[in-house]
């Protein structure tokens, strides 16, 4: 039996968590445990790019018995899509640890929760057993809840509870759907199992639409899709920097990933029928949140809304049912993770210096902190989709692909890009340009901050200039998925 690399991936952050809790009186050591375990995940996931997939698209598979009485197994599997997501998780968690290096309040517990969260996210990206999936899905929720509730700013309890209610409401519906599917399949075949491959064979009959809806609502809350999105601006705004980074960079992606891994393959026919609806919701959300973003005065909230708007493009790529668009959507998730993550990181650096996130009280950074300003501008124009930088690669593929299957929707989505320019440039003008508020002076980036942002910038450039190595592993899984939903011509 081969070495269980996937289990190791999930276990590494857990080991880090355990160490952090054990050595909670030595915060300096905890920091290095956190960095060490996140780096280990990143290195292993980078090595995984060298693996070759089998005929079903799996790069690695691991299977252990778990709860035999229920037929639940500890099954992990990785294809090209999960590979990208895992690598993104590894990368962003390193950044998350780096930007919270000087965590003052309960540092050990903070890092422990951050690592627990990583373990949960990695689990979601790797499991193919539905019960186990649900376990990991909920496992992400708890650390995030505490990260917001304990380390947040402002109205953190309200935001934490709101986040919790939305996502729990969604995931309960999903749990109902999982159990329903489990029982249906058991009755039909006599084999009570939570294995994804087996459940795909289930004939759900009249239940199919309901089960599909249960899954989808759970996922769409997470993405989030309008009108299930209002938890996000609040949660992002109050969350600590690492929390916002993880929320935007990773947690939102678990929703999209869930759709690709579970909702679409389990119910391909219903999924195909629902695509226009998804595209419509995606498009409404794209404009809706772009307009909201344009009005915000709190820059973190502005970026939070812009994040929902970008996810609208991703959802359009999913709904387009086209090879180019779907690859673009998955690539865009990675790009968005980097650029929006960087924006959130920069907002927290800005707040540490100025003590405010209010656009009206900011301005004139360009003279004060030129290095900071260059990075800020770089990530801002990346997130408005400047060609040659990350987001563009994903967006253009989504648009090209979507134009084949739903030209009107695609054209409208391109209009949305105009609004992206409007709110991003408003942000740039408000923060970097204009007069500096009198009597204030702010230091430029520290070395640690500069290196952190430099890494993100390199990633952004790489994805923009040469995304081919990241698109290549997607080819086979995307084709397999589209075969199921009838998206291949």
């Amino acid at each position: 039996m081969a070495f269980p690399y996937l289990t190791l991936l999930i276990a590494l952050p857990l080991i880090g968590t355990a160490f952090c809790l054990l050595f909670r009186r030595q915060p300096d050591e905890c920091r290095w445990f956190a960095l060490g375990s996140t780096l280990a995940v990143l290195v292993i996931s980078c090595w995984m790019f060298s693996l070759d997939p089998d005929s079903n698209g799996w790069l690695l598979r691991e299977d252990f018995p778990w709860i035999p009485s229920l037929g639940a197994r500890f099954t992990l599997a990785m294809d090209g899509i999960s590979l990208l997501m895992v690598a993104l998780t590894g990368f962003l968690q390193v950044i998350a640890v780096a930007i919270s290096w000087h965590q003052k309040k309960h540092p050990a517990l903070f890092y422990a929760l951050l690592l627990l969260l990583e373990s949960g996210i990695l689990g979601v990206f790797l499991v193919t057993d539905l019960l186990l999936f649900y376990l990991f899905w909920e496992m992400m929720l708890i650390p995030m809840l505490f990260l917001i509730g304990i380390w947040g700013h402002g109205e953190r309890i309200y935001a934490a509870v709101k986040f919790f209610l939305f996502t729990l409401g969604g995931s309960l519906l999903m749990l109902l759907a999982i159990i329903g599917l489990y029982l249906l399949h058991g009755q039909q075949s006599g084999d009570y199992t939570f294995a994804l491959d087996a459940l795909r064979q289930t004939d759900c009959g009249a239940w199919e639409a309901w089960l599909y809806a249960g899954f989808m609502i759970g996922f769409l809350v997470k993405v989030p899709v309008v009108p299930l999105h209002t938890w996000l601006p609040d949660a992002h705004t109050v969350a600590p920097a690492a929390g916002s980074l993880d929320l935007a960079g990773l947690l939102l992606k678990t929703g999209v990933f869930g759709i690709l891994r579970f909702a679409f393959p389990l119910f391909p026919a219903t999924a195909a029928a629902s695509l226009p609806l998804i595209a419509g919701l995606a498009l409404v959300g794209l404009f809706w949140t772009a307009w909201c973003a344009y009005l915000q005065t709190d820059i973190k909230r502005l970026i939070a809304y812009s994040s929902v708007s970008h996810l609208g493009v991703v959802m359009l790529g999913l709904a387009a049912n086209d090879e180019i668009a779907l690859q673009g959507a998955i690539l865009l998730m990675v790009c968005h993770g980097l650029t929006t993550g960087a924006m959130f990181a920069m907002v927290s650096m800005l707040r540490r210096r100025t003590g405010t996130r209010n656009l009206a009280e900011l301005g004139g950074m360009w003279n004060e902190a030129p290095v900071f300003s260059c990075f800020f501008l770089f990530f801002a124009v990346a997130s408005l989709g400047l060609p040659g930088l990350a987001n563009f690669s994903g967006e253009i593929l989504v648009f090209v692909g979507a134009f084949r299957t739903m030209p009107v929707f695609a054209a409208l989505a391109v209009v949305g890009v105009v609004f992206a320019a409007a709110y991003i440039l408003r942000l740039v003008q408000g923060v970097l340009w204009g007069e500096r508020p009198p009597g204030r002076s702010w230091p430029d980036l520290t070395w640690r901050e500069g290196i952190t942002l430099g890494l993100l910038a390199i990633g952004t450039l790489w994805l923009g200039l040469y995304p081919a190595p990241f698109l290549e592993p997607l080819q086979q899984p995307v084709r397999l998925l589209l075969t199921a939903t009838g998206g291949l011509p």
Partner: protein
Amino acid sequence: MQDYSLLWLIPFFPLVGSIINGLFGKKIRNEALIGTIGTAAIGASFVVSCTYFFKLLGDAEKIHETTIFGAMGSGTWMNVGQLQIDWGFLLDPLSALMIMVVTGVGSLIHLYSIGYMHGEEGFYRFFSYLNLFCFSMLMLVLGNNAMVMFIGWEGVGLCSYLLIGYYFEKKSAGDAAKKAFVVNRVGDFGFLIGLFLLFWSLGQKGVRTIRFTEIAANAHLLENGGTIVTIVTLCFFLGATGKSAQIPLYTWLPDAMEGPTPVSALIHAATMVTAGVYMIGRMNGLFAMAPDTMMVIAIVGAATAIFAASIGLAQNDIKRVLAYSTVSQLGYMFLAMGVGAFTAGIFHLMTHAFFKACLFLGSGSVIHGMHHAYHHAHLHDDPQDMRNMGGLRKKMPITFITFLVSTIAIAGIPGFSGFFSKDEILWWSFGSTRGGWILWVVGAIAAGMTAFYMFRLVFMTFFGEQKTDPRAKDHIPESGLTITIPLMVLGALAVIGGYIGVPAILGGANHIHHFLEPVFGQAQKLHAIEAHGSHATEYGLMGISVGIAVIGIFGAWFMYVKNPEMPKQLVAKFKWLHTAIFNKWFVDELYDAMFVNATKRAGRICWKGFDLPIIDGIVNGVGWLVRGFSAALRYTQSGQIHSYAMAMVIGAVIIVAAYVL
């Protein structure tokens, strides 16, 4: 077969220059060194461009494609589902001519900026942006596929944004920059939709490509004059109206004058704004297939030419006059493209780059001098207002001579460069198979207006008595050598630049026509696009247009030199007309009301009208209920959130199990 594999060097040099100055400029601090790095970077590109240009002149094969790694087939950018995008370059006579203009004029303007930007706090930043702009523009010009072109297309937009906002502490500069970018984005929408539609329409015929040469070779697969070709080209044209400031997307360009004057010369006159014209030239095969689109282009071009010229008649800011003049001259180029006079359009692009760059740099020299004088006298008058000028010809002789020469060129006086290119456009708009006499009439009237407002500018600035504040008037110096050398070179080009395109009727060989033949000849032949008419007609039209120009000049002289009181009387008499023209026909106000305010209103409805009261209201209600219950159940629960979660999970399992079983 010759080797063109080092084409990538041309955009590469300015990129390196930009990075060096951007990263280390603040540390270098030495203006001479920063300026030299920036100028040397674009100068190196100019040298490479010259090498390739002359190589191409002597080469029988006129169309060459390479990638950054040399041979075709390498240098992949993206490759998804038969959509292959390479980092590829294309050198043909059209792009060769363009790189000569961009690097040549670019080098001169870099040199000029060393003197003009002297003492600015952001000196290094300026040169970094300017180099980055040249890089983007060269990518736009050299790209062998629509995506590389789009990189340059957006890149020049970004640099334009940064340079308009160069004086970022001024709110007006920030607003103008944002406006330029967003309006351009509207145009980009057209570009992208056009590209997608083209890609999939050709894809249906079995050709999935975005390479220009392959598009041209397979264009015949689409229906000639059909709906698809018309929509595709109209979309691309929308993109062109954004970048090249045509109706309806021209409003950003006059505001863009907030940037430093060398920027106005390089980006907003000579190079970037001509990108739309270049793009149509690049896809001429496609446009030639869509006569309806061509007609739209010709009409929009002619309308823009006369509309912008009308606004130029009444402006008092020296740079604004030149800005509207640029919009108007770009209109001529589109008129040319629309009537199928592709060569004439590109020819005018080139001569316009010379004389308009010279005019802008000349105005910069004037502003520089005025600013110096006001600074010396501690005054805060507007150094760009022509009403404060007058009589400067004695103070700034070199600036005056070069400015006058360029003004004669733009007015279309025979012998100067502008005459040859403008006359060819007018001839084609009358005699082309895609033209019409009404286009000629509009073009000729606009030419008269051009002559009028340009000489009005010259008379107000350089002639008459000096109206500058007495405390400052004796302190206006001629500019230094880094400023006057580029002026003299460009002034010379504004005179002789036209001689590469002397028409046959005047005994010329029309070199440029033959040079560009490999690019435009095929489409023109295929769709029978040609200008025809007797020699007498051609001579006659030429005479009339020159006559109109002379009348314009004479009118300006009569109103601003002979009877200086007359403009005021006229303004008083036609108050409403002057108000309308002076306020740019109120188009900005109209757009604000229609688009900007509408966006804000939509945002308010979504956010304050729906998100907060309705969705959050429901959620808060649920939260309130939960809190109520939990207060009642407090004694049975630990009060910790994860135990709620566990309870809910277990409860859900039991409910479903009971229901289904």
